């Protein structure tokens, strides 16, 4: 391991272990993830990956991925409610299950990146 790599490892570890930095990083990851999710479904995967990378372990990363998926669904719900369409959308049966499953699945998929790096 080079000196530079060692320094990076220390930084990442601080992000994961220092509570204050950890939560700031998590909020940042969520914000970036949500912003990207408004552009493409890939944004949910990236968001899931970001919150996963901040987590201390793979299992926590997966939990964070689920959490991010739920936040995406809530954000979507707020956006729908803002347009007065939340009731109508939730009357759409299977068509509501699809995006909910997508949000959770894509976010968890992204969070698995924590196990790679």
């Amino acid at each position, binding site marked *: 391991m080079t000196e530079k790599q060692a320094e990076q490892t220390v930084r990442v570890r601080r992000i994961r272990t220092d509570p204050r930095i950890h939560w700031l990083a998590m909020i940042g990851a969520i914000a970036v993830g949500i912003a990207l*999710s408004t552009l493409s479904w890939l944004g949910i995967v990236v968001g899931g990956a970001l919150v996963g990378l901040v987590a201390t372990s793979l299992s926590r990363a997966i939990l964070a991925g689920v959490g991010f998926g739920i936040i995406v669904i809530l954000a979507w719900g707020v956006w729908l409610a803002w347009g007065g369409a939340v009731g109508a*959308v939730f009357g759409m049966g299977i*068509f509501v299950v699809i995006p909910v499953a997508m949000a959770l699945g*894509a976010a968890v998929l992204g969070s698995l990146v924590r*196990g*790679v790096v």
Partner: protein
Amino acid sequence: MEREQTRRAVLGGLVGAGVVGASLSPVRELLNQFAPLSGTVWDATRHDRPERVTSPYGDATVSYDEEGVPHISANDEEALSFAAGYVQALDRGFQMDLQRRLFSGRLAEVVGESEVESDRFHRQMMFQEAAEATAEHLMGTEVEPMLSAYADGVTAGFEEGSLELGFRLLDYEPEPWTITDTTLVEKIISWTLTGSFRTLRRARLKEEFGEELTAELYRDRMDHEAPIIREEYWEEEYRLDDAGEQFERPPEATEPAVGADIVDYLSRHEPNEFLGSNSWVISEEYAAGDGPLLSNDPHLELTAPPIWYEMHLDGPEHRVRGAAFPGVPTVVIGESDFAAWGFTNAGSDVIDFYQYESDDETYEYGDETREFEITEQEIVVSGGENQTVEVKRSVHGPVIEESGQQVGLAWTGHAATETTISIYNLTKSTSFEETLDAVSKFDSPTQNFLYADRDGNTLYYTTGQHPIRYTDGDPDRGDRIFDGSAQEGEWGSGFGDGFEPFTRPTWDGFVPFEQQPHVINPEYLSTANQQIIPDDQLEYYFAESYADGYRGERIYDLLDERIESEEPVDMAFLEELGRDTYDGRAAELVEPLVDAVDGTDEEQLQNVAEILASWDYRMEPDEEAPLYFALWMAHYRERVLGEPFAEAGLGSEYYPSDGRIAALDQESRWFGPSGRGPVMRNALRDAVDEIEKAGYEIYGDISHTGVMTHLTELDFLSYPSYPRGGSGYTVWNFGREGPWGGGWEMQVDLSEDGEYLGILAGGNSGRYFDENYDSQVERWANGEYRRLSRERPDDVSITFEEGER
């Protein structure tokens, strides 16, 4: 360490495979459509109409009222039409596009393989070619500028408005709108109202059951007909100078056989035979106000969104408010500053069928051997392999093929027609004479036109071109399959002469307009698709059959009673008449049913019989008796016809109307050896079982608006369920088994400041997320009317400004 590396590799592979797999497979489309926050489908929840639109045709304004009805105003007809097209595209774009795809045989292109047969049928029927011929004929006429501006308006609406949910679910964008698309709508309506394969179905039944049994089921005329034109109006005018005597079917007439497969195929695509409508007009003399009264409720299929679109046009030459078909720029049924009018289906026979001596490429026609005109067309199939269909035509019109069997057909709707000119002139008419002139141009479909104006005139006229058939130079009926090669059943002065499909006919030898059934200034008159006038009052064959006369008879009974009471007819009475739920089938059948149950030892059936015996035959949603009757009728139909029809391989599309079943003699062989009583009893047992099993309590449990579904058949797009009274045979009409009914219900008082009432079966918007998608359903189910304003709302929703696009 090695284990850790393996774990990383697996997880990395999983993430990579997940992302790459989703990106490269069809799942990507699904993700692009439905992903929360970015999915294209969810953009449909936002329907912000553009506030300013550039129109190359001039300034206009659109003010939407609280019901989503656009009030469109302009000082130029073309600017008005552009704006009308624009708002229709915003409000009903998906419905318009799906309709044109269905009838031009291009539905599989966006829906997939399930629609290939439908596409094949619609291509073979050549509706698109008929629309093209009509559009071409209208070029250079007074309506061309209006149609052109309208088409541009629709296209602009498609481009600038937020696409509807349907487009997003099927993941496609509409192509530009054309004048042909508008004339196709005319063909769609004409086909819905006059496209009948009854002649073929009857021939198929005759082959299975013989002449006598078929005649019992497919009765041409009912005993209880209360004709539209009653005796006091029978006039010499309906007699043709040169058309000989009343045509009886010659006993020696033989019909060429038609294969079972092709009749089954065609019957699957046949418009609902039981669609009907009501209208009535009351002259000033009997009206409570100082002007005549007019009512119309067309009973077409009930769908979400409705077939009708309400709009209010305020142009330089006219003001008109009422119901239009999405896809056409003019109000079809409604009221102008001068008059009000409506239509019901006339039921006349304007379609004939022909068999040929032929091979694959040629057919005999008189002394000649002619070539079929054949084109190969490709049906594009979404997600599947494209298909080829052979579209074939003869001198008569399209030749339909199925399973190696073929039949040619001639239909007036295949001609280039001027109905668009007629309707346009009707909306602008400012005199009785102009109205008559407009109605004379109404080529197709054949309709009962009913009218009243502010000068106090009333009018009934049968519209549409009506062929007189000739075989060997003699007038003939049109209710049998003709030998086309022997030139039987020639229309007017002959095919290729008086009538040539896909061109503008001369209509030479057709029933002249002046000799079509009509009544000028009737005191009061009603139409409900029943027989127009007794056959012996017409010297030409007019209709193979008419609708059961229940509604027609009931309306005249109630109107006669009111007129005889000398109490003036007012809107309150007309509302009551329009909401009448008395079912003539019940009046005919309940008594014999109760008798059939009498004497049995089944207590349950006795109890039901008791409920039915004390019933007033009104199909009220909160009552028990109509529930028993409606389900008994359905089971009775099955008990009588189900088994023999199934054995003959015939589906329910071959069933006759309930009126025909009710009219069967109690000794009819259709009831089998035990006779009618046991069949009635068994059907009641079936009904009671079904009611118990399903837990139904009142009629509203089965008769409700939830059966009104969307074109896509997606459940969530269906209308919410509200109990609805009436049946398919009552004045207040609701055929739950279709469903069909009064999609637009209208009553107009032409007195000064008289009321204008209307209600739409659904909502004016086709957008699921719009509050007006289903805003009128509950009121419609409750029998309420809306009071329609003749004024525009103050707030402008869309401003059209002149400019280049």
